[in-house]
């Protein structure tokens, strides 16, 4: 062959190669076999961590788990529980959505009054196909100790009154409806793969929706209200706890195949890219999270705090929704009054001054004051508000359940207002 012929052949081969490479990088035409070359790991780059160890999970009782899901009324917030959708008056998500979008049938002034307070619960993850994507041990742990998981949403998963056995049964039931499939490739803590996976997080736009605490990556932009589902994007730091590396790989390759109503789009990742991403998310080293400063109560106010003020700022807008007078609410005083979410009726009524002074019933059915001191010396009502602020910082109390349950904690100023009102003798 002549030199000219060789040059022509080389040019054709090079052009074909370039075209192939371009085609393979196109979003919808990814081929597993042809990917962008991975950078070789430099010394000290992308060190790997071991998978977090979760307590061993021994499957519980599926039937009991299903009964518990009904008892704890998981379907009031979540789809995919296997239970029928609740009626509107018990459908937290549906009701809040209707109010937020002016579809709720009531007077416009009521809607205007409620609207600023219904943002929570509009976006709640569906539990569909849970077993195909989450580790049962993690589900159990999250049920027992809910924590901040989705930076775009307020932490609203309530800390339910669950024993470890009950949580095990619920996790068993919820994960029993689907099982994780086999991984097409092994995901291993290979330094080159994890390094490439970290690089892909930015390149493939993952950080447009997700945060990854502890990795030196840009933060996702603030949620556009139009793109509300972005709020469901979890902090990928927890991916390694939530999912097996193989499950993560399958999820990255085609989320809808793992969960049919997945909000996560198909990124058309090639197999090796998906594997490297899964490797980084599962094994890439992450800096430990800086501990949040402990909650500090503000000193009680010297000025007079009357009931009208504390009612307007706190009780009427936060407490009353779950603790109201059943006589004024067709017999349903909310979970904190007539019972719900697995809680027995506590008969606590925040709808009036007298109602608040009347306390609630304890586990033995005895009326007790909301102002009786706890072991810490705080009036019980104040202790519950402080407990929620502490729960938000990862400190749970066995004595007092944080309130508002399933809502973000009150601000230090709001708690100060309540504490001041109580300290002043609960003036009208």
């Amino acid at each position: 062959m002549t030199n000219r012929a060789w040059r022509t052949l080389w040019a054709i081969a090079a052009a074909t190669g370039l075209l192939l490479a371009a085609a393979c990088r196109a979003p919808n035409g990814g081929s597993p076999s042809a990917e962008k070359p991975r950078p070789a790991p430099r010394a000290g780059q992308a060190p790997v961590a071991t998978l977090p160890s979760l307590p061993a999970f021994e499957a519980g009782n599926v039937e009991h788990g299903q009964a518990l899901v009904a008892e704890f009324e998981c379907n009031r917030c979540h789809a995919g529980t296997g239970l029928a959708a609740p009626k509107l008056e018990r459908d937290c998500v549906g009701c809040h959505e209707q109010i937020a979008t002016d579809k709720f049938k009531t007077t416009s002034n009521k809607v205007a009054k409620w609207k600023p307070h219904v943002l929570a619960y509009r976006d709640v993850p569906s539990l569909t196909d849970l077993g195909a994507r989450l580790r049962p041990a993690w589900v159990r742990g999250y049920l027992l100790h809910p924590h901040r998981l989705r930076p775009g949403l307020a932490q609203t998963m309530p800390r339910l009154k669950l024993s470890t056995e009950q949580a095990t049964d619920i996790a068993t039931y919820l994960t029993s409806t689907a099982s994780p499939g086999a991984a097409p490739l092994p995901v291993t803590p290979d330094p080159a793969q994890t390094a490439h996976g970290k690089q892909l997080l930015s390149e493939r736009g993952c950080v447009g929706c997700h945060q990854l605490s502890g990795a030196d990556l840009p933060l996702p932009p603030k949620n556009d209200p139009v793109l509300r589902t972005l709020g469901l994007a979890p902090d990928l730091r927890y991916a390694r706890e939530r999912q097996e590396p193989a499950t993560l790989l399958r999820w990255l390759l085609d989320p809808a195949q793992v969960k049919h109503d997945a909000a996560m789009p198909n990124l058309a990742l090639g197999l090796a890219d998906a594997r490297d991403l899964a490797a980084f998310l599962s094994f890439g080293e992450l800096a430990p999270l800086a501990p949040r400063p402990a909650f500090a109560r503000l000193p009680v106010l010297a000025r007079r705090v009357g009931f009208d003020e504390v009612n307007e700022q706190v009780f009427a807008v936060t407490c009353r929704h779950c603790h109201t007078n059943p006589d004024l609410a067709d017999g349903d005083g909310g979970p904190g009054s007539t019972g719900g979410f697995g809680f027995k009726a506590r008969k606590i009524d925040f709808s009036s001054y007298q109602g608040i002074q009347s306390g609630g019933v304890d586990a033995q059915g005895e009326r007790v004051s909301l102002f009786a001191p706890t072991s810490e010396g705080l009036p019980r009502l104040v202790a519950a508000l402080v407990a929620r602020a502490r729960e938000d910082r990862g400190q749970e109390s066995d004595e007092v359940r944080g309130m508002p349950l399933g809502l973000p904690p009150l601000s230090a100023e709001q708690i100060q207002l309540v504490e001041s009102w109580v300290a002043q003798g609960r003036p009208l």
Partner: protein
Amino acid sequence: MSFRKHTIWAVMMGACLGISVVAQEARACGGEWYPEVMVDPRIHGVAQAEKQLANGSRLAAAASVIRMIPHIKSLKSQPGSLVGRAERVLAVALSRSQGALPVASEVPLDVLGSWQGSRPGEASLNLAWSVSVLQRQSEAKADDVALKTDLGEAMARVPELRAQARTILEELAKRDLIASPEGYAALAALRSQSGDSDGQKLAIKRCEAMAKSPDACIIRS
């Protein structure tokens, strides 16, 4: 035109005339028709009366209940029902007014009747009615400590029921469950009557801390 045709013609004309007369009467063709919706004004009225009572306007609250439900004394209600709530407002307002409601400027005299408590014995009978209503409601809702507080307060104003009133209010006070400043004022009066001046001072102190106005803590026998 045959007889039969005349008959049909006459019937049709009659029907048209009838329809037009009825339609004119109902204004059905002129755009002034609207569906008649019955709204029970007592739903809002009772809630308003409860607010008035909570704000210390007991006479206004009582007057509004009597106006809305003049035959309230003849009714037997369940606590928590609309009439039950109205009964409670009236019973508490009566007890805090010593059984006499001087609201003749707000309520026609023939409706006000003995609620005014101006004739001998009327005030006592009114207080007795107040106690009986609160007792009935309290029995039906045994764990409602706000009702119990109101009952204790009302009983404290009936000399022969003071011992019972003291038992109720002391029991609630021990558990920090007296639900109103007036309840503490009644307890202070009962303690004072039995010579417990330290206890009286403590109850007055609690009342003053809770009340909007110190007037609520003035001991009335």
